[in-house]
């Protein structure tokens, strides 16, 4: 298992070897985001912006007007809240070609505690016009997503991550911005997951199949905005029940996006797995996932619950 941050740092290095059109901006957290790997390989393309995230965002906007693609890196709490208004007014509103790559997502942050656990970033960035949100599920997908993010015109918010994640894919995985991907087919319910929750959703689906004979479609929704409306509607129609799973508040993120979409298209029962409108605490990410209902068990429970609400069930 590779950590998402090391993967991100290495992916930047690999890309920098074949293209010279981007630079990396850091706010004194290179060791945390993984960009220290890039700094060592390409010191001239690494711009230290100090612990001054607001200035960093607007500087990135200026840089982007000179033919350079800035990749702004910091923790998601600061990228989505400390410097949010700069991301909105300096980057999104003028529609600049700036990429924000944020690590330290949700309870996966672990022992640093709630100040550093961004549980709101998807909800926040979803609400800002022009931003797209990409959230890969494992190191292989992150590697494939990065060049697509750089080549996508306008502002993109990329969730990188921090901890080791079990490999879901391999080198063959492809990434298309705006498209969710079916990882397991099933007719009883659909589990739509993002980020670290994808491997837990797969585990939940496998367990439900083995122990209870339930067949769940599992979707990796690695673009949160624009959300894949077609796939969500198709899943609602074919399986009649949906569960979302995210290491993020259940308000306004993946769960919110899916709720809005099925309400607009094929209304079916929905259960949202995620953080239930509270601040968590310090602890090992795996322990926190169990305590706050983000583990495979919590996803299984949500599937059973949604099936009770399913029409004709």
């Amino acid at each position, binding site marked *: 298992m590779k950590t998402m941050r090391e993967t991100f740092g290495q992916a930047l290095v690999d890309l920098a070897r074949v293209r010279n059109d981007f630079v990396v901006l850091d706010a004194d957290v290179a060791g945390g985001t993984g960009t220290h790997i890039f700094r060592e390989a390409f010191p001239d393309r690494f711009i230290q912006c100090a612990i001054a995230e607001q200035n960093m965002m607007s500087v990135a906007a*200026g840089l982007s007007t000179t033919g350079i693609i800035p990749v702004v890196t910091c923790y998601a709490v600061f990228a989505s809240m400390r410097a949010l208004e700069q991301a909105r007014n300096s980057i999104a509103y*003028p529609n600049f070609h700036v990429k924000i790559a944020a690590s330290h997502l949700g309870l996966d942050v672990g022992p640093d505690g709630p100040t550093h656990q961004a549980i709101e970033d998807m909800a926040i960035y979803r609400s800002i016009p022009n931003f797209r949100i990409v959230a890969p599920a494992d190191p292989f997908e992150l590697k494939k997503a990065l060049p697509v993010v750089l080549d996508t015109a306008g502002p993109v918010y990329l969730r990188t991550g921090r901890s080791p994640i079990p490999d879901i894919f391999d080198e063959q995985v492809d990434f298309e911005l705006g498209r969710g991907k079916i990882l397991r087919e099933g007719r009883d319910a659909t589990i739509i997951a993002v980020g670290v929750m994808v491997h837990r959703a797969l585990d939940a689906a496998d367990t439900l199949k083995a122990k209870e004979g339930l067949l769940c479609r599992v979707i990796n929704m690695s673009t949160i905005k624009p959300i894949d409306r077609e796939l969500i509607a198709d899943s609602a129609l074919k399986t009649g029940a949906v569960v979302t799973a995210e290491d993020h508040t259940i308000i306004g993120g993946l769960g919110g996006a899916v709720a809005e979409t099925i309400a607009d298209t094929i209304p079916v029962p929905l259960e949202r797995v995620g953080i239930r409108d509270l601040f968590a605490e310090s602890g090992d990410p795996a322990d926190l996932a169990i305590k706050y209902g983000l583990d495979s068990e919590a996803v299984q429970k949500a599937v059973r619950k949604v099936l009770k609400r399913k029409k004709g069930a």
Partner: protein
Amino acid sequence: MPHLMKGQFMTDEKRLIQELEGKAAELRKHIVTMNCHAGSGHPGGSLSCVEMITYLFHREINFFAENFQDPDRDRFILSKGHSCLVLYAVLAQKGFFSTEEFKNFRHIDSRLQGHPDRLKTPGVEFNSGSLGQGFSFALGCALGGKRSHRSFRVYVLLGDGELDEGQVWEGMMFGAHHRLDNLAALVDYNKYQSDDLCSRVTALEPLVEKFKAFGWYVMEIDGHSFQEIGHAFDRAKKIKGQPSIILAHTIKGKGISFMENNPRWHGSLAPVGEDRIRALRECGL
């Protein structure tokens, strides 16, 4: 003043200043006209920086309607975006769009937004209005210019009230650390911000010492004197290894007697009734 031979000095400089005064007077007419059309906007801080904007656009920067998307153009960023009356006025004067558009300022379906919008208005570099951000944006332009080995210069105009923003001081450290000597910042030090005298809102002073302590090359000028503005720009171009900042003492509402040094005319409003007649008369309309 640049480009003057010795001997010629008096007559040429006099002629140049007269020419700039004429442009500045026209900008004040444009500002008052647009402000009255809209019934809102920020006249006080637009009128205070008229001379600096006049000099910048007519003598200093390589920036024209024909080259405004050229990667080598000089950049001007109005960080105090609320003062866009003066920016729209000078862009019209430079032929970016017609003065006919003034009547649409701040109205629906207009290219002239209440604060600058680069996607709507030709010649606007940045969507400023949220204070502090234009300054950091300008630093990013300057850093990008250096990294891409382009020789353009960056000019950014801040308000004095804008200096309350923490982001400005983050940017001050950044600009000095990255030795952005291709950038000159101007502060329109008209002493008033939205609500009151700056000095009563928060203690800004001692500004010269603060800027110096942050590593910038500091000049202090009369922001209504074309000579002093020109000398400061010339000096800024010679400074190597550090960015320059020009603290320009100005009069808020300059040119319209009842607006001068009166925070009421910061914005967002426009003169009505008797005031409108006086304002139009005083700027020569």
